[in-house]
């Protein structure tokens, strides 16, 4: 009789233990998904974020992924609401830049001199696809040599979560720090010069390359929320691991650089 009680106690303990493990596992998984966003928060994060949003923090180049891969670093994050996600629609494309405009005043911008411009480009909110996008800056004056790094990126989804993916040492993120180097090809006459960042789809080889990498990413997906009648689980499954060519829809103010030469 005593042995039976002990056996029941052990059985109960086992059941409780297994239940706890099953409760904890999904949370661990979720934490992994938001690894960069929720961990490694720099001690000055809140202050830097505040000063960037006030337009008074100028050392954008030195901000690391610990800053710019946090969703709440960007005003767009607070503008969107993931809790009211419309499952009847599919976020296929969307991107943006932050800051959206930078201005420089330069005395005597002479041949060979250059300036480095930094901004952060990122996927739009609630985008469920992997987007390949090529960036370009046109110079109608032909006075400048302009280099963009990176000039082709693949944004990872921002819904149902943001995550960094690695395929054969190639790292894909939902946001990237972009460096634009503008070099004077000759002595620049006084005046105001405006440059706009444009987007197009990547070349065909890059498209295929990205497509193959998306197929290989280790990705868990989401289920339809209970009681959401607009959500079709079969359609949700079709939205998994989709690569699209981004850049065919544009916002005219994606990123603007203004250089005033005196």
């Amino acid at each position: 009789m005593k042995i039976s009680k002990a056996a029941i106690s052990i059985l109960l303990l086992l059941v409780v233990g297994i239940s706890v493990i099953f409760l904890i596992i999904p949370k661990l998984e979720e934490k992994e998904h938001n690894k960069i966003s929720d961990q490694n928060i720099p001690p000055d994060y809140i202050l830097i974020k505040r000063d960037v949003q006030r337009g008074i923090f100028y050392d954008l180049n030195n901000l690391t992924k610990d800053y710019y891969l946090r969703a709440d670093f960007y005003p767009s994050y607070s503008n969107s609401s993931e809790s009211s996600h419309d499952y009847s629609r599919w976020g296929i494309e969307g991107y943006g830049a932050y800051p959206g405009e930078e201005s420089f005043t330069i005395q005597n911008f002479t041949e060979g001199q250059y300036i480095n411009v930094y901004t952060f480009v990122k996927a739009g909110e609630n985008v469920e696809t992997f987007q390949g996008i090529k960036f370009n800056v046109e110079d109608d004056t032909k006075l400048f040599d302009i280099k963009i790094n990176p000039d082709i990126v693949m944004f990872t989804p921002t819904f149902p979560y943001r995550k960094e993916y690695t395929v054969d040492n190639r790292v894909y993120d939902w946001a990237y720090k972009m460096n634009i180097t503008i070099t004077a090809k000759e002595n620049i006459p006084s005046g105001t010069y405006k440059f706009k960042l444009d987007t197009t789809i990547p070349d065909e080889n890059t498209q295929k390359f990205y497509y193959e990498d998306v197929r290989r990413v280790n990705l868990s997906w989401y289920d339809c929320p209970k009681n959401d009648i607009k959500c079709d689980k079969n359609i949700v499954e079709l939205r998994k691991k989709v690569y699209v060519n981004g850049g065919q829809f544009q916002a005219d103010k994606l990123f603007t650089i203004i250089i005033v030469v005196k």
Partner: protein
Amino acid sequence: MKNMKIRNLAVMFLLTSVSIMATMAILASAYSATQPATIDVYYYVPGDTSFTIAIIGGQTSMSFNPSNNSAKLVEAQGQNISQGISWGNITNSGNMAQNFSVNLSQSNLPSINLYVSSNPSMSDQVTVDTTQKTPAGWANVNPNGLVQIYARANFTNAPGGTNNNSMYIY
């Protein structure tokens, strides 16, 4: 004789010097990106220019299924103008007003004309091609603003089969 040699040497030295100086001058003036410019004023507008395109649930692209090869006013699949169901929505999730545009990545066949509008009456429709086009309703969209994408196509003796290029809108 000795003076001649010295003079010749002096001339050679002078010519060599001039040549070296000329080369250096050319090299110095050659375009190279090695000197950062001195920036007097730098400021940035902390605007976020994000946006998102969300299309009707069951679709994976903008596709048309005309009843014949010269069908007109064919709606994009999933869209329903009479019920006010758009093919897609554009949300301005940034914090500044924005204009939105669209273009095809490759030219359409001459036998297919694609139109996009911001409303079901197609009153501000533009013909979509490889240049960026903005229907009036997609201009000056405020932060958190949402505009719609309605699409229709006209076919005129279009060749049979699927023409991916023409509908390659995203």
